[in-house]
């Protein structure tokens, strides 16, 4: 009876279950259960110099250089950055701007590698089979060196999260196998086929951060994956304190903060990392990549990609080398004509719409969707006025008030938008999804965030300019005063000899110029 009452209360929205809000879009997991296939190698690879959140990399190779698969071709710049590696063996043919995955359709410098077809690997990194005896810092450096960034789509450099902090000891590792976006199945398939490897990666991460327990989070629409993982866990004596948690399917459960709340009831404070509540969260694909980096010494040069969409002739779960163009990958699955097709990079809820298929696959490419033009257009009908129905606030996983926030962004009242916690918006799109007025709320938020960033940049620049201007003013005033003082002194001393005075003046003025410059 209490259970029934609970369900009724939840149905009526009187009681929360798991994280706040959320929606349940049509799953459309066309590729569920399809075995992972290897995408064939191609003659040309394009490696953009920035594939993660943070600073872009600096190339280490020059045109004409021969590279091996896994060889480092670009160096990380700054702390929030990881290096890049050649996806196959071949020759660097050019380093120039090329369109990349970005909503603007703009270009960025990319390294072009012409494959030699041999796919020779670079074996310079030794295998760390003895990782249990190694210091966490050594393993962490390995993870960084191998270029691993969160493969769930956020591409935050992974090594940064893998720290042991005395103040905030990590108790729990959450392995994220939620995959709540429609269409996407690559994590699902990885858990089905490579459960052992994923668990090895999990053990390595737990060793690195000193976590005592682990949770493998899976939604109830992937019960087969949960079964496989449970079985693999049963066979694995090492991971005694790890369990599989099956959560009700709801988008955006895969978002780190929402997932942590669903599992532990803890909220990550705004502006803080999950480790502040003693949790770290890693995607299953990332765990597998960490395992490959440590056990096999293999840098990140490939990833699993769900190639799907309602316009995809033969959808599949593919293992794709980074740097292959989308056009090439799509062609492998029978899609060559892009007339009336919209390409989405990522899932339909958070993915970017790409303008051309000639951009390369990067570390964040969780899915490549080919959608019918009409399907995408139906999701973007003409915007109507907000009727303030509040469905967006009910759906918001961050408990924001999207419609009011969007009003403030539209009216350029950015201070108010910020006061309404604009920067806590995770851009999951649940609000736009439920909006009966079809308001592109997420775009308003992105506009607001972009404008605020730009205003801050402008303000900082203006402030720096003002300081330089003031410094210059002060310097000019000082020089003028000095000049006047010197002049009066000189005049006093040399008053009887007028011709000499003029020469001094000339000399002095040239001195001044030199000083100024």
């Amino acid at each position, binding site marked *: 009876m209490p259970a029934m009452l609970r369900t009724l209360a939840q149905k009526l929205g009187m009681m929360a279950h798991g994280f706040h809000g959320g929606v349940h879009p049509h799953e459309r997991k066309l590729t569920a259960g399809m075995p992972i296939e290897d995408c064939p190698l191609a003659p040309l690879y394009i490696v953009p110099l920035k594939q993660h959140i943070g600073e872009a990399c600096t190339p280490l190779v020059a045109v004409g250089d021969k590279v091996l698969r896994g060889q480092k071709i670009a160096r990380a710049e700054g702390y929030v950055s990881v290096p890049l590696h050649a996806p196959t063996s071949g020759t660097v043919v050019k380093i120039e701007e090329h369109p990349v995955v*970005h*909503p*603007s359709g*703009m*270009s*960025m410098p990319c390294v072009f590698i012409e494959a030699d077809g041999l796919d020779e690997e670079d074996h310079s990194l030794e295998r760390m089979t003895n990782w249990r005896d190694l210091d966490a810092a050594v393993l962490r450096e390995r993870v960084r060196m191998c270029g691993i960034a969160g493969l769930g789509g956020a591409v935050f450099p992974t090594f940064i999260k893998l720290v042991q902090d005395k103040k905030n000891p990590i108790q729990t590792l959450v392995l994220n196998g939620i995959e709540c976006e429609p269409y996407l199945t690559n994590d699902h398939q990885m858990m089905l086929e490579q459960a052992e490897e994923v668990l090895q990666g999990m053990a390595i991460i737990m060793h690195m951060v000193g976590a005592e327990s682990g949770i493998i989070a899976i939604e109830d629409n992937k019960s087969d994956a949960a079964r496989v993982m449970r079985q693999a866990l049963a066979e694995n004596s090492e991971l005694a304190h790890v369990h599989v948690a099956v959560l009700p399917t709801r988008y955006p459960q895969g978002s780190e903060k929402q997932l942590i709340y669903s599992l532990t009831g803890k909220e990550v404070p705004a502006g803080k990392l999950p480790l502040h509540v003693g949790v770290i969260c890693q995607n299953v694909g990332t765990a597998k990549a960490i395992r490959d980096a440590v056990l096999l010494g293999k840098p990140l040069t490939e990833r699993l990609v769900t190639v799907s969409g309602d316009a995809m002739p033969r959808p599949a779960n593919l293992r794709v080398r980074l740097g292959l163009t989308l056009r090439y990958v799509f062609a492998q699955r029978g899609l060559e004509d*892009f*007339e*009336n097709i*919209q390409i989405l990079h990522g899932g339909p809820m958070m993915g970017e719409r790409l*303008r*051309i298929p*000639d951009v390369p696959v990067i570390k964040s490419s969780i899915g490549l969707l080919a959608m019918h*033009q009409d399907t*995408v*257009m139906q999701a*973007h*009908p*003409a*915007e109507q006025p907000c009727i303030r129905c509040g469905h967006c606030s009910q759906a918001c996983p961050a408990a924001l008030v999207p419609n009011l926030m969007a009003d403030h962004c*539209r009216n*350029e009242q950015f201070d108010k938008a910020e006061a309404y916690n604009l920067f806590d918006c995770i851009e999951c799109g649940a609000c736009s999804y439920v909006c009966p007025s079809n308001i*592109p709320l997420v*775009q*308003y938020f*992105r*506009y607001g*965030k*972009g*404008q605020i*960033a*730009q205003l801050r*940049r*402008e*303000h900082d*620049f*203006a*402030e*720096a*300019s*003002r300081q*330089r*201007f003031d*410094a*210059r003013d002060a310097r000019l005033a000082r020089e003028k005063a000095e000049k006047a003082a010197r002049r009066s002194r000189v005049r006093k001393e040399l008053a009887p000899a007028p011709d000499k005075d003029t020469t001094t003046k000339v000399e002095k003025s040239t001195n001044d*110029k*030199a000083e*100024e*410059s």
Partner: protein
Amino acid sequence: MTHLLAALLSLGAFALLAGVVLAVAQRVFHIEGDPMVDKIDSMLPQTQCGQCGYPGCKPYANAVASGAAEVNHCVPGGERVMLQIADLMGVEPKAVEEEAAAPMLAFVREDECIGCTLCIKACPVDAIVGAPKQYHTVIVDQCTGCMLCVEPCPVDCIDMLVKPELLEHWAWPLPDTRRAAVGHERRGHHAGHA
């Protein structure tokens, strides 16, 4: 007579009382300068370009705060700055007369530069470096695009270039409400790339 006297006295006494209270209040609540000037100054782009007719941003801020200048004279700040100032001053917004050009950068064609240092002296933010008889160069990160260096150059070797757009600085535009654009636009690009 006494009635009139009473009226005058009481009114006078009362006025005196009010006067004394106000005089004291004036002392207590005395303020130095105009606090609005700094607020306005912090909204201005600090190009010091002088397009407002004042010798710099601070003087213009002064003029606006004192009511001597309208809020719409800052050309590089454009509409946004005008709206901010109007909002702060509580006055009706007024359109900026001159259209703000795209953000510019000064660029010295070094092979033509004669090293006269005139541009260096003109630059209000010390964003040009160089010694006499040496090539001068603009520090890109510090140039405000005020164009004050162009005029003094005796050999006309300074160009104003449009500031390049950076991928990192790209910002989402406001949504377009005429959503049919999805179709048109795709057809356009397809012709170019197919």
